[in-house]
């Protein structure tokens, strides 16, 4: 199956999470599902990196969390983008685009 090939690139997980949460607050499992769906299964976020990432973002105060009841009556921890996180998402997106362009350019010229 080549599990590693589905792993997002190192350092991009924060961006993926922020982007996903920018649409709506969501719990951890929901985030993985969402990323998988949107990328047609190309990117699969490993739980081992998701939860530390969530914790990291929460420490940076880019997201915050609260316990809510899901549609089918289960308690789950929902994460939500903070205003600071919204700003950060913009900056991260910019920097990602620059990065991709640069890599692209390099690949083309060589």
């Amino acid at each position, binding site marked *: 199956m080549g599990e590693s090939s589905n792993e997002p690139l190192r350092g991009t997980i924060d961006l993926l999470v922020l982007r996903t949460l920018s649409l709506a607050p969501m719990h951890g*499992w929901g985030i993985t599902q969402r990323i998988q769906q949107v990328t047609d299964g190309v990117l699969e976020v490993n739980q*081992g990196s998701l939860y*530390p990432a969530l914790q990291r973002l929460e420490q940076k105060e880019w997201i915050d969390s609260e316990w809510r009841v899901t549609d089918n009556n289960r*308690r789950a921890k929902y994460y939500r983008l903070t205003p600071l996180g919204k700003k950060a998402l913009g900056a991260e997106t910019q920097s990602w685009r620059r990065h991709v362009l640069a890599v692209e350019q390099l690949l083309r010229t060589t």
Partner: protein
Amino acid sequence: MRGTRRLVMWLQALAAKRRVERELDEEMRFHIEMEAEKHARRGVPPSEARRRARVAFGSVESHKEAMREGRGARGIERTAFDLRFAGRQLRKTPGFTVAAVLTLALGIGGNAAVFSVVHGVLLRPLAYAEADRIVSITHLTRGGSLPERLPSSSAAHFVYESGNRTFETLALYTTWHGALTGGDAQPEWVNVVTAQRTLFDVLRVRPALGRVFAAEEDAPHGPQVVIIGDALWRTRYGADPAIIGRTLTLDGVVREVVGIMPAAFAFPTPEAQLWVPLRRDPNDLSGFNVSGIGRLRPGVTPEDAARDLAAILPRVATVVDFLSLATLRDAGIRPDVRPYLDEVVGRVRSVLWTLWAMMALVLLIACVNVASLLLVRAEARRREVALRIALGAERGHLLAQSLAESAMLLFAGSTAGILLAWGAVGLLPRVAPSLLPRSGDIRLDAVVIAVTTLIAAAVAVVFGVVPVARNRAVAPSSMLRGGDRAATSDRHSGRLRQLLVVAQVAMATIPLVGSGLVLRSFQKLSAVDPGFRPDGVLTFRIALTEADYPKSADVARFHYAFLDRIRALPGVTAAGATRRLPLAGSNAEMDPVRVEGRVFPPNTLPPLTEMRVATPGYFEAMGIPKLEGRLLERSDTDHRTGAVLLTETAARKLLASRPGIGARVAHGLPQVRGERPWSDVVGVVGDVRGVSLDEEPMGAVYYAMINRPGVDMDWLAGSMAYVVRSPLPPTTLLPLIRRELAQLDPAIPLAETRTLSSVVEEGRSGMRFSMIGFAVAAVIGLFMGAIGLYGVLSYVTAQRTREIGVRMALGATPSSVRVGVLRRGIAVSAAGLAIGLVAAFALRRMATPMLYGITPTDPLTMLAVAAVLLGVGAVATWLPARRAARLDPVRALRWE
């Protein structure tokens, strides 16, 4: 209250941590359940769905661990864990822990205590502004018939004051005792300081209330004034500020109180209670009999000042006629200027530094002890360590864990040590206030704690690193394969341990030698014959006031009447009086003595002898033996010429080979204090150590209490120390004596009541301090050395259990096993002893100033030290040896 609050906060923090963990659990469970449901929705059976979800999620624990690390809690948690782990490990081996903590506590505590004393007595500046500029001025001589050091002189100061270029101010002072009377209070015996008014400028101290002496008060025939000390002001005058301007009577002289000194003022000693002006008369300057003090100009060294004064001193010949240039030159008199602190501290300086050095050595022994204990522990744990490394423990973490252990030991050890020192320092002034100068300045303050902490940190480096370094070298594969058997055959570590023990024994030898030497000195000093028999003698002092006893005949009549009454008391075998008791701490009054018909070479000072005053009965009461002629009699008092006694040494110095009885002597140089008439020598008595036990007697001339009518009070018997020999205890005798005194004159205070033995004991107090200090250092050192030896031998023996078992199975007898272990222990202690004795020999100079009557290589001391060390070594070896000999070979072979 604060304790409970802290507990609550701690519980909250703990609860928060629990909550975070719980939420994490719940979040992950939710994740797995959702995943399982997803699979279930696709038709996978529930159990398989859950399995898949769990597999996909991976290890919950490792995710949680990653999160903990992410929380940053990991560092703290790990440290807390390591500390808890270390605590558990230490609790598991209470023997080791107690030994290590106790060793460290004694080492660090001993250092902190001695350093408190060093800091308080030697390092802390005296409590005066810019105290380092205050110097004492004395005079050195060529020795011979003169003491090597003389105090200062009003004549010398007279020329110093006007001519020097290195001093801001100079002052003269002297101390004496007087009777304080007047007012409603009881008459009181007080310590008085006579000083020039410049003293307060030298010290830069001002009265808390009132003023210092005015210029005219410090001049001859000026108004009589006094400044009183804080303690006297409170106890006698109820801290009443209105005392200023009122009068008090000191030795019969009515004086106006002009000032009250602050409570902290304790010049020259804390005992001083009153200060009166010196009123130096330029027409009546004296020889070397007062103390000199001065404040140097900024930037001037004592050596500069001494040179400056030396250049001026010859001018003294133009001021007084008893000191000629030739006299100064021949006697080799030259000024000596030293920091005043030196004078205050005196001989204790070298004792304290040496003691600190000894304590440093003891601390080093403690370090080595703990290091070797840790080493043994590390050896024992090598297998565990190897196992943990094989299971993937990070070496860094293992290092952190063993550091945590060391840190805990050190923390416990230094805390206990500081508490120990705190107790010891608190006890010191209560146990022995007279043992040390400046004992009020000794305290365990921030500086001491800071220095102790630094020392503790150094200790940690010494003992903490060794075992860690050893553990780093562990190679898991070989260790696991070899087990403990491999560990025992590690020759290198065995040798290292033995070397450590040799070093310990060697280091323990040095304080032991020091202690032995001081003990022997004390023994010698105790054996010194003071020249009188102190036991069974009660002494006290009374003073008559000039107002009530204006004529010397009145004074004599009173003393004789009082002595008669005392002698009539039941149980009194002899009673007499003198002006100054021998060994009572005051300086001797040294004066040149001339002999009729004997011409000393021109421009040399005749030999100095002490001038003493005694009543009939004094020699009998003191137990001073009569050697020739007769003792003083009451009739000598009224003699036209007066009769004197010489001590043996004085007779030898003054009369050379001439017959003692019948010679005529006179005190003082011609024209000094008016020429005294010749006195007949009527007898020779035994020598008495007058100033201190360890100084050879200078020789003395005893005058009858009043040997000529009309001589001024100072020379007379205004205040006399009584000596009463009686088998009765002082508590019985004293009330009787008080009653007699009250009947004669109720206004006279009776002071300084003590036994003559206690006076002699006090003369040994300096030596006693060094003796106690060294004994403590030696005992701790010895104790630690023994622990070290015992610990290592026990361990080595335990490690050799299997080997011993094999030997015994092959026919070795228990006694041969025992001998083997004993031999090893004794070899180690003998090697340490040999090194220690060589080191002690190399350090012998350090000990010399503290010794009396023995050389620093005293063979008896060395033998005793060797015996004690080898004895303790044998005892420390005996237990492991016995254990080894009792081994059951079968069990020993199974031993792992």
